[in-house]
């Protein structure tokens, strides 16, 4: 049975505006699906639906099965057992995704303490190991720092360490690098790629930049105004985009690429 199965997912506001319409896809451990679409297409809402964390006032219909559990309509207790272990997420803005008043080490320690019951020395060692696994130099100092005291790239590494601390079966990465500059972005993507490869977790990678998403994912799902308009293996979608929206995305990526190549001597 597939680890995550989303079928006919529809998200509506209380005023009956449809934000996501009839989206279906499946994702297994070790698999990498790219969810791509313009700003406002509904990517984050899909991610939040899977986590059972839709904001108040939004309703999800359809069916989401995660590790044999129906997520939609499940009680908070059941959902909470899934979060962190079955699925977890890294979000876009690294500064907003970390508690400004909590030292980075304490934030990474939170899931380790509550999920794996680590305490004292073992907990501290696990925090340092988690920070080391995301290639942060001087993890001891990093653990004592506050979010505003480190760079955006370092913060996003901490967020990844926090998300992967309990070795989740599935990671949702919602534009994890869009607030970083290109060099740092490449580093963080490489890191994510290695870590996911090592743990064998499934990855739902969300983005609006085709070049980035196609570099990480194996399959693509193109979203337009809340609807899935195209899906398939990355190579297929790139070579023969069927939907105008996809053609637009591919065209943009090509033009950028072409401009870069013309500029290089």
């Amino acid at each position: 049975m597939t680890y995550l199965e989303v079928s006919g997912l529809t998200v509506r506001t209380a005023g009956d505006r449809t934000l996501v319409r009839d989206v279906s896809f499946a994702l297994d451990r070790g698999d990498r699906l790219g969810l791509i679409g313009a700003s406002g297409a509904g990517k984050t809402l899909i991610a939040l639906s899977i986590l059972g964390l839709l904001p108040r006032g939004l309703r999800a219909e359809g069916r989401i099965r995660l590790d044999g559990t129906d997520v939609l309509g499940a009680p908070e207790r059941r959902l909470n057992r899934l979060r962190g272990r079955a699925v977890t997420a890294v979000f876009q803005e690294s500064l907003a995704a970390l508690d400004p008043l909590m030292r980075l080490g304490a934030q990474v320690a939170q899931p380790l303490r509550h999920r794996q019951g680590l305490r004292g020395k073992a907990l501290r060692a696990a925090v340092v190991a988690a920070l080391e696994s995301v290639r942060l130099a001087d993890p001891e100092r990093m653990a004592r720092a506050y979010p505003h005291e480190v760079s955006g790239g370092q913060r996003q590494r901490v967020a990844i360490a926090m998300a992967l601390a309990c070795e989740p079966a599935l990671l949702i990465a919602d534009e994890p690098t869009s607030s970083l500059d290109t060099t740092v972005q490449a580093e963080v993507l490489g890191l994510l790629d290695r870590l996911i490869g090592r743990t064998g977790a499934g990855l739902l990678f969300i983005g609006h930049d085709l070049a980035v998403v196609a570099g990480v994912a194996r399959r693509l799902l193109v979203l337009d105004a809340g609807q899935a308009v195209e899906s398939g293996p990355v190579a297929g979608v790139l070579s023969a985009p069927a939907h105008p929206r996809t053609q637009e995305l591919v065209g943009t990526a090509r033009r950028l690429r072409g401009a870069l190549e013309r500029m290089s001597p």
Partner: protein
Amino acid sequence: MNRTLVIGCALLAPIVALAAVSLAWTPYGPADTTGGRLTPPGAAHLLGTDRLGRDLLTLVMIGARTALTTGVLAVAISALIGVAGGLAAGFAGRLADDVLAAALDILIAFPALILALLVVAAVRPSLFATVLAIGLAMSAVLARLTRALVKGVLAQDYITASRASGTSWPRIVTGHVLPNIWPALSVNLALQLGLAVLAEASLAYLGLGAPQPDISWGRLLREAQATVFTSPISLIAPGLLLAMLVAGANLAAQGLRLAADPALRVTR
């Protein structure tokens, strides 16, 4: 410790000291009138005596105790009710939240002093009634503030991120919500300490505070009115201490805020 907090505490310290010493010792008894009426300041009576012949330093010391007790207890009541109510409203569903918010707005529209007057009028005047009245009146403001702060924190991405990694609601509250609303809350609690003391003094000044044996700066001020030209010290002493306490509480509040926010903290 930052400079603002230090100055605030320096203003509060002598008042706390006066109140503490008064528990064990005062120059005279509060009912001792052997000094004679309106004796000017001197060796026997450092601040002189009032128009009933009581030692002013003694009265002012006991008044400090009353002021601090009132302030601390009223803030405790306000914090208990206000923070709990605000947290409940912040987490509540839309309907319950709307009802609570409307109720708070109506409560807050009443001036706190009028609200306190009503409570004091309803029960027999006593120090406890005064404290309860002030605490209740202030708790509405605190509840509204807490509700707004909780809503703000819950909307933050780090709450979503923390929940995505499996943190339960109780731990979200203790680990993220309370620490993040505390800076703004503590400032307000300290401000309320000053307000509570002022309110107690005002009630006593209006003659609605605790009855006779209890001594408060507010009543000293009321009694000093009649003799303000012959014995200005009996007005100045309690008035100055009252001002010191309120200013000290405000500065300490500001200092606490600076101390609680790591991004505002001055590099050592």
